[in-house]
């Protein structure tokens, strides 16, 4: 999937540039973007190390475990296959809490560790598991209580009341979180039905052949 998206983005972009006469800028753009990735990573290193360090402290002291026990009813509903696997659930809980607090830099490393642990349980290492899909869909729409950048941008642009969007924002993010859970569960179910159907189809075909 990612292979196609990535290739399409590049090919489409280049073809469109040729058509609109902007091809001369493409070389500069590619080099600038690669350079931007380096700058971003250099910026990231310190911040991510700091958050991961802090997270390790909270992990070793049992603080994260306490938090994830509080979230257990929700987590068990969302990730039934991970029930009792406190290590993964702790990482997921950290990721979701950091997301909710608007600490994206703290959320990413915990999320990646959660994915790595889920991958260890997976039978098929190339395909996303049910829990991974749920985690990703949820991650991309989870509650965001404070968005500091937006507030700062609003204030800088001369807003009369920069914080006025917080209330509506929380309502929207609550609704999308619920929608995300419903959508993810619905896809989970239809996907399982599809697999079951295929199996049934295969077995009837085999039966016919043998008949």
């Amino acid at each position, binding site marked *: 999937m*990612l*292979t196609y998206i990535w290739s399409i983005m*590049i090919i489409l972009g280049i073809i469109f540039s040729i058509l609109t006469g902007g091809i001369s800028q493409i070389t500069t753009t590619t080099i600038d973007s690669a350079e931007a990735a380096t700058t971003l990573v250099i910026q990231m290193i310190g911040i991510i190390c700091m958050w991961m360090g802090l997270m390790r402290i909270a992990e070793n*002291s049992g*603080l994260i475990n306490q938090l994830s026990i509080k979230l257990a009813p929700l987590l068990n509903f969302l990730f039934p296959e991970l029930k009792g696997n406190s290590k993964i659930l702790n990482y997921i809980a950290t990721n979701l809490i950091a997301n909710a607090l608007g600490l994206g830099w703290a959320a990413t490393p915990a999320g990646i560790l959660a994915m790595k642990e889920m991958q260890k349980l997976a039978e098929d290492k190339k395909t996303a598991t049910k829990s991974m899909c749920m985690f990703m869909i949820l991650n991309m729409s989870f509650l965001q209580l404070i968005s500091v950048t937006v507030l700062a941008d609003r204030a800088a642009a001369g807003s009369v009341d920069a914080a006025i969007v917080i209330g509506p924002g929380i309502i929207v993010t609550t609704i999308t979180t619920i929608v995300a859970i419903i959508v993810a569960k619905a896809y989970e179910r239809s996907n399982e039905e599809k697999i079951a159907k295929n199996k049934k189809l295969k077995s009837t075909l085999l039966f016919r052949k043998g008949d």
Partner: protein
Amino acid sequence: MILFLSDIIVPLIFIIVISHALLKKIDVFGSFLEGAKIGLETVFTVFPTLVGLLVAVGILRGSGFLEFLGRILSPFTEAFGLPYEIAQLSLMRLFSAAAARGLQLDIFETHGPDSYLGLIASVIMSSTETVFYIMSVYFASVKISSTKYTLKAAILVNLIGVVVSILIIKYFFGASL
């Protein structure tokens, strides 16, 4: 009040985590170093993905294709009450947070942060995520190539988020705009 809250949230986390760890008598600084090292490894795992992604997004963005797509779609989106600027912002938001923020700042400058479009843009920016970026970084970190229904679902949820943002802003501020 909320701005104050966002100022104290990071210090507060530090205080809680460290004092809890001290009470539990664990090796606090040793744990920090252990985690920071894992952080370093995480960044290196993510770096190749990041380079690939930023180059692709850069080319797509630089080509002006997304603006073009937004303009082509605008008769349809506007028929559903989705202004052109917002359609473009939501489309860009899927690929690049920085580019979407640029569009948001444009809207603030042309229409004002407290205008109808300004308010919608603010809510969308604070309640949606950069789908392609997040999916690439997370799935690439575990070398998964088949992401099943994740993308479909994420885009659907994102779209619903945009529609809900518009409805909520209309509901809250409809009378005063």
